[in-house]
């Protein structure tokens, strides 16, 4: 955390245009402190609220870090105009501006404000909510639900969504399984009361997110409208994408966001594993999965298969099932267990899995991953 910044003390030059573009806002890290965990009754979520949470905005230069080091300034003057610049000791100068390059740092800006953490109390049987699961897909679901809650909340209070900020995910254990905290904090230092209000009205905000009054024209109603449902396969500017979350655009998925919110409300929600695909975000999931499968195998020599009720394919001596990224693949349950059993029964081969999140976004990468495993 720098104590201060300064210019190079010269008269300066015209600013270069767009010479360094940082997409979206730098990440927000919230210090973890021991706080009382409160279960929200009638739901599947627990919260921790802190009125003096320590929040850090970290600028790591897009992951590249800043190179530089301590030195004395200025170097010997080259212009007559710089002769008035005083000699200064212990100056941390970026190597881009003539400093040494013996250190790599990120910049941090801390503040104390109100912080709310939300996490599932219990992982429903058959699901996996560890944010490292499904190659980024669960992480995507959790961030998407955080942005969804942020937007729904802002829509209810008619405030700028940026009044509350979303921090990096933090891992914790719930009922013996790993889950992640969604972290909200007030943008204003010392708190503006929004996050506290969100905590007090969390159930109704989440209910509005997945069960809005039809035809009300609210933000959630628009997301769940037929037009959006048909036109948006993952995320768009009408639902979750805004400038400030640009760095998350690749991860955002409104369907997964709503599924995750339903899990926070109900520990019996199965995300289709019980064969119930009637929820708006799941309507047509099997058809989409089949379409993605067909498109994926078109270029490869694979055999289309239907394993019980789930689409899949057979590639020489390997068998695949297309799955929802929130499903637990270590201990399949419900229709996934039936599908795995069908694949084993018919082929004698343990099936592998490929999820719709990655099939939709990066089929080439999926193919590479499958090749890696086979080697």
């Amino acid at each position, binding site marked *: 955390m720098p104590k201060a910044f300064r210019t190079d003390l010269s008269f300066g030059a015209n600013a270069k245009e767009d010479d360094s573009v940082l997409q979206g806002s730098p990440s927000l890290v919230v210090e973890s402190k021991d706080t009382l965990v409160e279960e929200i009754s009638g739901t599947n979520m627990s919260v921790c609220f802190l009125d003096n949470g320590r929040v850090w905005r970290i600028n790591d230069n897009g992951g590249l870090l800043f190179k530089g080091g301590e030195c004395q300034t200025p170097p010997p003057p080259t212009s007559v105009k710089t002769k008035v610049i005083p000699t200064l000791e212990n100056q941390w100068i970026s190597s881009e501006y003539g400093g040494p390059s013996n250190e790599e740092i990120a910049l941090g800006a801390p503040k104390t404000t109100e912080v709310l953490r939300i996490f599932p109390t219990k992982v429903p049987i058959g699901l996996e909510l560890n944010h490292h699961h499904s190659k980024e897909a669960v992480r995507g679901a959790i961030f998407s639900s955080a942005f969804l809650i942020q937007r729904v909340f802002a829509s209810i209070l008619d405030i700028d969504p940026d009044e509350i900020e979303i921090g990096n995910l933090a891992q914790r254990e719930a009922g013996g399984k790993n889950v992640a905290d969604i972290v909200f904090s007030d943008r204003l230092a010392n708190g503006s009361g929004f996050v506290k209000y969100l905590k007090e009205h969390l159930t109704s905000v989440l209910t509005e997110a997945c069960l809005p009054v039809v035809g009300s024209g609210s933000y959630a109603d628009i997301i769940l409208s037929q037009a959006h449902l048909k036109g948006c396969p993952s995320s768009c500017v009408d639902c979750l994408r805004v400038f400030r979350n640009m760095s998350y655009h690749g991860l955002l998925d409104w369907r997964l966001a709503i599924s995750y919110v339903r899990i926070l409300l109900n520990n019996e929600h199965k995300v289709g594993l019980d064969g119930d695909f009637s929820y708006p975000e799941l309507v047509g999931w099997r058809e989409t999965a089949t379409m993605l499968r067909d498109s994926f195998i078109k270029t490869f020599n694979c055999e289309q298969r239907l394993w019980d009720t789930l689409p899949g394919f057979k590639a020489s001596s390997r068998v695949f099932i297309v799955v929802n990224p929130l499903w637990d693949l270590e201990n399949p349950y419900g229709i996934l267990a039936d599908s795995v059993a069908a694949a084993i*029964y018919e082929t004698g081969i343990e099936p592998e899995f490929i999820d719709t999140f990655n099939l939709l976004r990066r089929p080439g990468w999926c193919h590479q991953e499958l090749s890696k495993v086979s080697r």
Partner: protein
Amino acid sequence: MMRHIIPQLPIMPLQRVSPSRFTAMKLCSLQEVWASKCDPLLPIFPEARLGSVIHKMLELSAKGLMDIEQFDDHWMVQIEKVEMKIAQIWQEEQFVPLSTSVKNYYVKRALCYKVANNILRKMLYSRQRSGRVNPELRVNSPDGYITGIIDLIRKDNDGVQIVDYKTGLYMSTDRTVKQEYQDQLKMYAALYFTQCGIWANRLTIIGLNQVELDIPFTPSECIDVLNSAKQLIDSINAKIHAGCTQESLANPTPESCKHCCFRPACALYWLYRDNTMIWPTDIRGKIIHQQLLGNGLAKVIVQDRLSEMSVRRLSPARHTFLNEDINQVILCNLKREKSLNSFVESQFTTGFI
């Protein structure tokens, strides 16, 4: 506390051995001697418990005692029976319910359904072809020392087929049926011949994936395996009658001890083993430090004859002796951590003092 004390295990002659135990008996006689008379000291894997339920379900199907529509009801009854049993066993009570402790529980259940359905359909087909299916036939050697139950006998115009269902892994790394299962089926064939006077023409293993694998055999091979089993039983019993000690029956090797549920009581096991990865992850020694950590779990430092070892995440509720002033401890089925000589509790960990 009492349950954490290793009892004195008796050494008594073998009265009856199952063909499925022959390979284990060849590896270590002591293990079989204790298994024939004593309760296991270490937990039986919940996968094996579920395997017994699946076997029972297939038996019910093969005996025609179940319609496929009744599958769910029968499954629940069998699972409840097993869960009630293991809830009474202190080493295994943490495995209830099996649906959460057995990996792929629901897949195995779905596979069991498919196999049971297939058995019922085949039985119907076989009846239509005037063939015969005999489930669960007990076969004994004339002296009664070797006795087993054949899962299924299929008889048709081609001859007799002896079938054994396997619910776990039955292939070895070289992609052949494991030798112990080959020997088991060959012994069944010899026992069937002894009892019924007919040689089977096929010995078949069927897995839950419905793959049927025939084991090649000749009658003389089958007789040889049966005879060698008899000779082994005779030699073990002769040693026991002569008053041998456990050391003369034990054969501690990483392979024979890996699945042995009696190794905490085996003196030679503790003498032969070392702390390398090839041996089971057990420790025995003196507690030199014990600490209750902030998460309510305990950490102990144990000094054995070779080194100091740290064990974390021990549950004082499961290992009640941790609340007492104890000196020596045995901890079996631990999980290794990355750093050397560091371990944590696993769901199979069992402690003795």
